[in-house]
């Protein structure tokens, strides 16, 4: 039982990270009907930029741990968000009217480019985060000893998800995003600048993904330039699981996938851990392509 709850909380923390990345996939898909394959690599860039900023400014020493990491997260989000906007301008906007395959190939190219740029800049080895940024130790919750880091990671992702949800539901820009997702043409007729909405989506999605990269660095203590595609695939699975294009769906899907994976790794087989997410992905696409709460993605045959 002890192990079950440990794996459950671990799964929730990892799931929170998946959910943050999945939000980027799902928002871009909602507005553009495009799978942004480069999203996983923007996430990795978040992890690397976080490390660089962390070691060069040492904010946690100057501002204290929580404020320092908070400012750091904002800087990472800003930078990765900017990269997302530039990526959309360079690789996706010229292909807005092109056939689907072209945009998909361009996205894959962008993914390969971003990943290898990181390798050339930082080298192929794992990059290690300095120890003890976040408080170590653990707290007692109902008789369970749960590491503080785990709770902080889960809290951070939940807070960001809540902010995003309120932003999309309550603000004027959020309404424009939702309108563009339903019908771009009609949104344009209502005076919504769809290009600007797309830019905003490509700012927010990668910003959340970048913050997830930072969280992975803080949680596991190391980042690698190839981690983007495994996390990306899993987050994408989470987005499909919840129903792609659906923001609450991505949150639920991410947390669920994290838990399923952690429990599967603990009780079935650790060696097959990475295969679990892919099996979930294939099963959900075959059995219920709409996801738990989402739109239809498969054609009827």
């Amino acid at each position: 039982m002890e192990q079950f709850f440990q794996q459950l909380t671990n799964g929730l923390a990892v799931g929170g990270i998946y959910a943050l990345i999945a939000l980027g996939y799902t928002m871009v898909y909602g507005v553009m009907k495009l799978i942004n394959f480069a999203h996983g690599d923007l996430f990795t860039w978040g992890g690397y930029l976080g490390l660089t900023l962390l070691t060069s400014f040492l904010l946690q020493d100057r501002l204290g741990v929580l404020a320092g990491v908070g400012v750091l997260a904002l800087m990472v989000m800003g930078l990765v968000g900017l990269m997302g906007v530039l990526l959309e301008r360079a690789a996706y906007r010229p292909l807005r009217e092109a056939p689907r395959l072209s945009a998909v190939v361009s996205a894959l190219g962008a993914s390969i480019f971003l990943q290898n740029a990181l390798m050339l800049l930082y080298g192929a080895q794992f990059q290690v985060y300095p120890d003890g940024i976040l408080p170590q130790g653990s707290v007692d919750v109902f008789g369970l000893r749960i590491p503080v880091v785990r709770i902080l990671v889960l809290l951070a992702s939940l807070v960001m998800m809540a902010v995003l949800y309120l932003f999309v539901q309550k603000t004027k820009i959020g309404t424009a995003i939702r309108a563009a997702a339903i019908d771009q043409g009609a949104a344009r007729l209502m005076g919504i600048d769809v290009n600007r909405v797309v830019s905003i989506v490509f700012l927010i999605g990668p910003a959340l993904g970048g913050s997830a990269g930072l969280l992975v660095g803080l949680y596991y203590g190391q980042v690698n330039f190839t981690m983007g595609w495994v996390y990306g695939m899993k987050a994408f699975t989470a987005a499909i699981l919840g129903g792609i294009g659906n923001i609450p769906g991505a949150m639920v899907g991410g947390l669920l996938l994290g838990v399923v994976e952690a429990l599967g790794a603990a009780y079935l087989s650790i060696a097959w851990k990475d295969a679990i997410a892919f099996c979930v992905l294939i099963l959900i696409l075959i059995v219920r392509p709409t996801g738990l709460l989402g739109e239809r993605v498969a054609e009827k045959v």
Partner: protein
Amino acid sequence: MDRKLLAAYGAAALLLALAPRFLDAYWVDVLDNVGLYALLALSLNLILGDAGLFNMGQAAFYAVGAYTAAILSTRLGLPVLYALPLAGLAAAAFAAVVARPVLHLRGDYLLIVTVGLGEIVRIALVNDVFGLTGGANGIFGIPRPILFGHKVKRPEDFLYLIWGFVAVTVFLFHRLEQSRFGRALNYLREDPVAAEGSGVDTVRYKLMAFVLGAAWAGMAGSIYAAKMTIISPESFGFWESVILFLIVILGGSGSIPGVLLGAALVVGLPELFRGFATARMLVFGLVMMVMMVVRRQGLLPLRRVRFKAADVARAERERAAARPAPARAEVSP
């Protein structure tokens, strides 16, 4: 097939036949690799180019073929060339089983699922599935093929074996392109709804494209196993599939000469610029982005069959020649 293309194939065949006289073993080996990738890319081209199915798990079929050949030849002592058709069959059977449930997925989702399939196969191989695949170390000691009593061992022997197989493949796939099957696939790619409306059984043809493409990749896999004598799961990872995808897209999807050119560029060019070996994938990524904006159809795009002025004139002549016949038929009764 038009004459210019035939002449180009002839020239390429001649150059390849003479290559061992002018190149050292290293460069002959590079040509072997180009040939192997050309085979694999042609097999993917059937699925991605002709049928328009975004398959990014081709390495999985390649792996099934390679491992089948390796297991048959090391455990049962079957000569590796006899294992070649069996490897093709195994890959085809595997494709038939795994592709059927996912065929109906829309373009980019099919791509994601095939990435997942490829990854599951790789993880299965690493985990020594059925106790046959040797785990992360793979299988070693695969015997060399023996052809007409001659042991195929040196790179130049493999050059003839591989490129001979490529030549047969190119011939067969050109024939396939012209066949009812090939035309049905093209129709399917251009407009699935219209194709279905005209009586093309879309599911069956898509599945056949997958099965045939997988069979070819499986056979290429058995040649790879025989060439390397060692195979391990790393050789069949996600990046193999990406490179094959890139070859087809870069060369011109659906176009056989385009795919051959793509294989030569993607596999051969990095060898010329070895100093930049680490930047290879970076350049590939950039090329993919730029190509999609600048030249979406690929370097040597598929030429569509269309009526030329000469064809129309010929049809007119034939009709004129045929006209007197019905006139006489009218008179006779």
